């Protein structure tokens, strides 16, 4: 089956470069999330795939067929819009069967197909309702059913959860993922919500300023962020500014060890990222352990499932997170504790790039 491939895709709006040199492969049957802050070009990228925008440069291939210049109505990639874009003058079933009506499929068969899809999205019996009578969640299901009715080769969703309230959103993420796996369709979801992306995606493309910062599985992106932007955008991270020094990294008055996944020349500026759940409040000062920084507790946030310890250190403020199951000796605000940064958990990035977030 055919993969969707983008080769050196670029999109300019006047002098503004919305998408810059994107090379991506969307594997058949997989769900890819385009993740990034607003204005990063992810929606433009999705619209180019749908055929609603034309790339300024580059190629879009579906298998070995080039579709760069193919108009949207010939691609027929099912798309779910941010506000769902359901037709208010048509009933639920007519909305779902719209693509079939355009094709000229007979009315009885359209209705049968609509009923089939209503069952798929768990809205049996809603076929004759007006769009105005549906809740936000129901509208989303109708929009999904409508996009799938034409059995598209690619299924596109533009911020599909943004019109839903927070509770419904989490449920729908799981439901959409299960549906996608059942149908087995190549799916691309645009989102700015990293939790949403990690819940649903096989592959995440982290985007910033029109570029793909990192492409990988959710776990890869979380545990091995490619740069400080990705580290800050996916999950939480503490950042330290430092310099490379003889295979180690100097941060303030402290020398830290980190995995030498990159070779840095001496004195080159670096950013060191460490996730809150990876930093440790040590029992006692242990020089043999290394990678310790003295810290003072400024605030403790205990929300039940996690405890966040806010710390003031000579190299900046940091947060350490403990899960409910993890043991931690009783602490109090104002207490001075050694902060241990496990070397294997530190991510070191060159600092010349402008750090976002």
């Amino acid at each position, binding site marked *: 089956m055919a993969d969707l491939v983008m080769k050196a895709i670029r999109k300019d709006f006047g002098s503004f470069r919305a998408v810059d040199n994107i090379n991506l492969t969307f594997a058949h049957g997989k769900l890819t999330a385009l993740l990034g802050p607003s204005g990063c070009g992810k929606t433009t990228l999705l619209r180019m795939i749908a055929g609603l925008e034309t790339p300024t440069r580059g190629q879009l291939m579906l298998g070995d067929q080039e579709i760069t210049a193919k108009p*949207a109505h010939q*691609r*027929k990639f099912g798309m779910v819009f941010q506000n769902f874009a359901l037709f208010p003058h048509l009933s639920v079933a007519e909305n779902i069967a719209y693509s079939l009506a355009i094709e000229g499929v007979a009315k009885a068969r359209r209705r049968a197909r609509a009923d089939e899809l209503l069952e798929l999205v768990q809205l049996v019996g809603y076929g004759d309702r007006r769009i105005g009578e549906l809740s936000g969640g129901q509208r989303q299901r109708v929009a999904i059913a409508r996009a799938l009715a034409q059995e598209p080769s690619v299924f596109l969703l533009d911020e599909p959860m943004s019109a839903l309230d927070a509770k419904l959103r989490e449920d729908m993420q799981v439901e959409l993922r299960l549906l996608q796996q059942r149908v087995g369709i190549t799916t691309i979801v645009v989102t700015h919500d990293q939790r949403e992306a990690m819940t649903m995606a096989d592959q995440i493309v982290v985007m910033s300023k029109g570029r793909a910062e990192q492409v990988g599985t959710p776990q890869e992106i979380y545990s091995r962020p490619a740069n400080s932007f990705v580290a800050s955008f996916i999950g939480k991270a503490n950042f330290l500014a430092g310099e490379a020094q003889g295979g180690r990294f100097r941060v303030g008055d402290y020398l830290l060890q980190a995995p030498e996944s990159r070779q840095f020349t001496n004195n080159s500026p670096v950013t060191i990222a460490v996730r809150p759940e990876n930093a440790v409040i040590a029992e006692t000062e242990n020089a043999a352990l290394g990678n310790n920084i003295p810290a003072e507790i400024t605030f403790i946030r205990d929300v039940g499932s996690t405890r966040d310890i806010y710390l003031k250190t000579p190299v900046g403020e940091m947060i350490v997170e403990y899960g409910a199951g993890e043991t931690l000796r009783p602490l109090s605000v104002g207490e001075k504790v050694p902060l241990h940064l496990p070397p294997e958990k530190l991510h070191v990035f060159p600092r010349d790039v402008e750090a976002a977030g």
Partner: protein
Amino acid sequence: MSLSTAEDLPTPAPIVVREPSLWFKLGLVALLALLCLVPFLFVLTISFGHKIEGAGWAFGFEFSHYKRFFLGATWPETFQSLYIQRLGYSLFFAAIGAVIAVALAFPFTYFLTRMSRRAQTVWLVVLLSSLSLSEVFIVMGWDILLSARSGLPALLDGIGFTDLMKDLGWFQWFRDVGLASPRAFKFKTSGFATVLCMAYLVWPYAVILLYPALSRLDPALVEAARTMGARPGQVVRTVVLPSVRLPLFGSTLLLFVFLLGTYVTISVFADPSQHTLAVSIYDSVRGSTLNAPFGAAQSVILLITAGLFLIAGQKLSKAGGTA
């Protein structure tokens, strides 16, 4: 779509609407009565009045003017439908003019709403300023444009179109529909010129009436249709037109009623046998026949006709809106 967000918003402080005082309300009612009702009642009164030959009218309660309208002055000896015909031409020209204006304004307005904000503003300003032209100016303009010696017929003659049509043997067709004299094209004093000028008169109104509905149309609806295989023409037919069918219907109705009163266009361009009630009313009140009560009776009938159409339109659009 915004249901969930609307619930999340903090409840705004209730806006205190102070009930206007009784005097204010009475004042408004009085103003409305003075501006609308009094003139109408005045016309209604005159329509039942008695015509004094060469002098005007006197109070009375005669149905003779209404009888003359519906059955003819000499009824029951003979029956005449002249004025019903005039009313018919009023409805005919107004309906065609309104439909043409809206039909031409729809695609224009649709593309206008897809332009940049700046382009839209420029176009709307141009359109609004064209409304300042009176009917008289517009008719004068078209009069020159369509005149045989200096207008379109002369142009068609000059570029050889007239001869081409004659050579192809199609010229007779133009003669048959009344758009040509034996030698050349002749557009003036024709239904064509009348309808053209009437449509031109109300076209800017049609654009302005359709603009809000079309600019509110969510572009995502059009895009959604495209991703589902609809070609541009199918998008317009299956998504855009149904979404704005109520505004389309409403604009057509409004312009139709507006055009019922067209006077200058008809008197300049229409064949005297096709003159409308508006022309006939003027003739009765100020023109050749000087019969104010009969003019008033015709006015009342025209007004009631317009009112009936508006009421029927209201009923239809309500039925269409809930269907």
